[in-house]
C-alpha cells in the first residue's frame, strides 16, 4: 500500500489529531478502570473508550478512507450505531450480576432487593 504517500499533508495531520485524541481518551478510560476503588465506580471508566474514544478513531478512519478513495466513506457510522446499541447490554449484565452478589452477601450501602422495600 503506497497510497498513503499521496495523502495531502493537511489530511494526514487531521487524521493524526483524531486518532491520537481517540486513543488518548480510551487510554484515560483504561487508567480509570485501574484507579477506581469499587466495582460500580469501575463500570463508568471504560465508557470513555466506547464513546468519544471510538468516535475519534472512527472519524479519523472516515476522513482517511474518504481521502484515499476520493468518495465519502460512511461504514463507520454503522460501527458507531452498533457499539452504542450493544454496550448497555454488557454493562447491565455486569452491573446486575455485581448487584445480585452484593445483595446476597448483604454488603452495606447496597440498595436491597425490590421486595424488601
Amino acid at each position, binding site marked *: 500500500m503506497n497510497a498513503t504517500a499521496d495523502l495531502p499533508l493537511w489530511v494526514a495531520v487531521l487524521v493524526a489529531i483524531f486518532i491520537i485524541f481517540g486513543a488518548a481518551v480510551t487510554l*484515560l478510560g483504561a487508567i*480509570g478502570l485501574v484507579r*477506581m476503588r469499587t466495582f460500580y465506580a469501575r463500570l463508568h*471508566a471504560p465508557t470513555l473508550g466506547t464513546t468519544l474514544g471510538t468516535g475519534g478513531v472512527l472519524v479519523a478512519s472516515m476522513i482517511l478512507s474518504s481521502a484515499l478513495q476520493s468518495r465519502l466513506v460512511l461504514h463507520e457510522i*454503522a460501527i458507531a450505531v452498533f457499539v452504542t*446499541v450493544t454496550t448497555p447490554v454488557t454493562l447491565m449484565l455486569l452491573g446486575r450480576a455485581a448487584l445480585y452478589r452484593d445483595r446476597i452477601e448483604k454488603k452495606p450501602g447496597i*440498595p436491597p432487593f425490590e421486595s424488601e422495600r
Partner: protein
Amino acid sequence: MTRWLPYPVLTASLLVMWLLLNGVSAGHLLLGTVLAIGAARTMAALQPSKPRVRRWDSVVRLVAIVFVDLVRSNIAVGRIIIEGPDRPGQPGFLVVPLALNDRTALAVLACILTATPGTAWLEYRSRRDTLLLHVLDLGEEQDWIDLIKKRYEPLLLEIFE
C-alpha cells in the same frame, strides 16, 4: 402493503446499511431491497413491539442534546480519573421514578445513560416504575434526577408515547 412490508423503518434501515457496507450501485440496490424485505418479514415471526415515532423534530433535538451531554460527561469523568480516587466527590446509588412505560423509549434511555460516562443503568423495576442508577459523582441527588426527568424524559415521552 402491511403484509409485504410489516416493518418499513426496519426494512429501510437494513437497506441503508447494505448500501453503506457495499457501496451504492443498481445491483446492490436491488439485492439489498430483496434482502431487507426478506429479513423484515422473517422478523415479523418474532413479533417485536412496533415503536411509533410520533415527532421527528424531537428526535433531532434529543440527538443534539445527547451529543452535548456525551462530550460534557466525558470531560467530567476524565477529570475525575485524573484527580484520582481521593477526590472529594462520592459515587453512589440513585433511585429515579420514571413516567416512561414504552419499551423502546426505555431502551433508548438505557443507551443514553450508558453512553454518557458517569451514569450507569443498573436495574429497572417495572412494578414500581423506578430506575436504579449508579452515579460516579453523586453531588446533589436532585440534579441527577432533574437531568433525567427534565432533559430526557419529556422528549422521549413526546417521541414514543
